[in-house]
């Protein structure tokens, strides 16, 4: 049959005249997901598999994750890595994944047995068995050549928090910290309620609380954050996190950081959490590691690079550019992105979200070193970045071990 060439030409061109509104499509798609988590529509999903093993773990934990977009940048006081017009320009609509939700009791107790090799230590107050005993920082023993003169202590040791009573009683379990930069001590770790981007919100707040009291004997901590943010959905508002080391300044002298990456420090972390979304929004649960050219950066010293490892995120637009590829690290596949602003940011997005991780973070750094310089590791953060929506993340167990 003959085709009218002029019509063909005009229709082909017309087709491309429509620029889909990706935001709108995403929002509607996510609203569909939201409808799916409501019990009335749950029947439809019976028998449906909603994702991989991590997703199933999540299901067991009452996870309701929803919407999202925009890159949640995970730290404060710095120029947003992405702004509306810049690198963040959402080109790829978020890989829409669906956090499974079988409403289940929200009680989540990490499994009794940890995988072999888990860094969680059985703290012997007496002194460190290498690597195993100080959940935060392994004994400086065999050598922390990395220990910079200026940093009062690359924690050498057994006298670490594990062996001394954690000063965390400052904050009663359950009490909420709601102001910007409110901090709770959790042994060597600190829990900070960081609202670094909240001035972009039209309304909202975020609070953190230590849910499990002082650090457990093995040095692991439990904490919660809940938020409600509206406005500027493409912009991060807050990053509540536990961290070790530098956080635009130093809080503790004995954090065990910095470490010279040339010495290949071991960094392991175990993290179990649940996500509860009340209002669809964009959030992510991530590690955030920072690197400086010098071991003793001040509060205003720009970092050289930042490595982010995103375990869980609501569907978000990934940045238009910067995709380096997909890698398999520590049993998961990760999309790797790289941006540069005032410093390099290398981000690993887990292609399938997880709410339970036991990772050798060093392996990510090894990978990240292909894209940026990693001189001195000055901090490790682990927290929840939020753009908008309302919800809660409960970390039932978190530990971090340097060795």
């Amino acid at each position, binding site marked *: *049959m003959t*085709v009218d060439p002029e019509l063909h030409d005009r229709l082909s061109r017309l087709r491309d*005249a*429509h620029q*889909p509104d990706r935001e*709108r499509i995403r929002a509607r798609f996510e609203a569909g997901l939201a409808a799916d988590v409501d019990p009335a529509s749950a029947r439809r999903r019976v028998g449906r598999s909603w994702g*991989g093993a991590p997703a199933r773990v999540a299901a067991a934990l009452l996870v309701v994750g929803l919407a999202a977009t925009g890159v949640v940048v995970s730290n404060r006081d710095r120029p947003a890595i992405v702004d509306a017009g810049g690198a963040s320009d959402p080109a790829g609509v978020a890989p829409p994944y669906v956090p499974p939700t079988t409403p289940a009791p929200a009680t989540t107790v990490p499994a009794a047995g940890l995988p072999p090799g888990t860094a969680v230590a059985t703290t012997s107050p007496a002194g460190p068995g290498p690597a195993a005993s100080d959940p935060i920082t392994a004994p400086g023993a065999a050598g922390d050549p990395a220990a910079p003169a200026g940093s009062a202590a690359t924690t050498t040791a057994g006298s670490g928090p594990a062996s001394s009573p954690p000063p965390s009683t400052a904050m009663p379990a359950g009490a909420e910290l709601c102001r910007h930069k409110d901090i709770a001590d959790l042994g060597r770790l600190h829990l900070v309620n960081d609202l670094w981007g909240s001035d972009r919100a039209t309304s909202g707040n975020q609070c953190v609380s230590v849910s499990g009291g002082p650090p457990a004997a093995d040095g692991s901590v439990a904490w919660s954050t809940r938020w409600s943010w509206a406005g500027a959905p493409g912009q991060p508002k807050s990053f509540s996190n536990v961290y070790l080391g530098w956080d635009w300044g130093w809080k503790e002298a004995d954090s065990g950081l910095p470490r010279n990456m040339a010495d290949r420090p071991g960094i392991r972390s175990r993290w179990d959490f649940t996500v509860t979304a009340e209002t669809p929004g964009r959030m992510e649960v991530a590690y955030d590691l920072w690197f400086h050219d010098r071991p003793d950066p001040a509060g205003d010293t720009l970092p050289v690079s930042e490595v982010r490892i995103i375990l869980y995120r609501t569907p978000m637009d990934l940045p238009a550019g910067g995709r380096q590829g997909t890698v398999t690290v520590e049993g998961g596949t990760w999309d790797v992105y790289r941006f540069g602003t005032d410093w390099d940011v290398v981000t690993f997005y887990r*292609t399938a979200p997880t709410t339970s991780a036991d990772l050798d973070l060093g392996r990510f750094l090894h990978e990240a070193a292909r894209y940026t310089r990693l001189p001195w590791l000055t901090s490790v953060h682990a927290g929840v970045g939020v753009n908008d929506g309302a919800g809660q993340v409960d970390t039932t167990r978190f530990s971090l071990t340097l060795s």
Partner: protein
Amino acid sequence: MSAAGGGQDRFEDFYNRHLDELARLAWLVLGDGADADDVAADALMAAWRQWDRVCASDRPLAYVRRMVVNIAISRIRTRTRDRRRFLALVPWAAVDQVVDADTTAADQDLRAALLALPPRRRACLVLRYAFDLPEQEVADLLQIAVGTVKSQTAKAAAQLRRDLDQIEVALGEVRPRPPHPGGAGRRPASRAPVTVHRSGRLRARPEVTP
């Protein structure tokens, strides 16, 4: 990664890869930009709900295209029912005419003419002409015979030709027109796209982040 996780990866990939095309298909079948994006989202949602079945088909994309067309056509029917009570004008006038700042007047005419076609006939034409699908595929997609695809497409093309001329006459006084074929007169792209109602009211479309 588990098989299910792989399925999810595949869906993500599918979503990213075909979103634009599916939204454009919806747009041409449906005729309204905003609605079209909703149709694409709904089709993707439906695809995700039965992703294993979509994957099991020979051509996942064809499967989801069909969803788009079906959803779009059923939406047209609903919309037509809703509007018939209020508008009894020529068919293409019953639908808001979308004026995008960066589409040409000729394109706008083309859209108006497309809107005058019965939905399934329009779908035939769009799939054949704008998406270059083979007749057999269009037949599979619309669940009609190949012969029907041929005849419907031919009729649609003829009607489109005819209506394009009528529209020119109808709109001649309303706005300056470029010479017919090719009319490349680009409108200034500085304004936000607006929807022009036949009543003359202007309605700003939702801001789209660049």
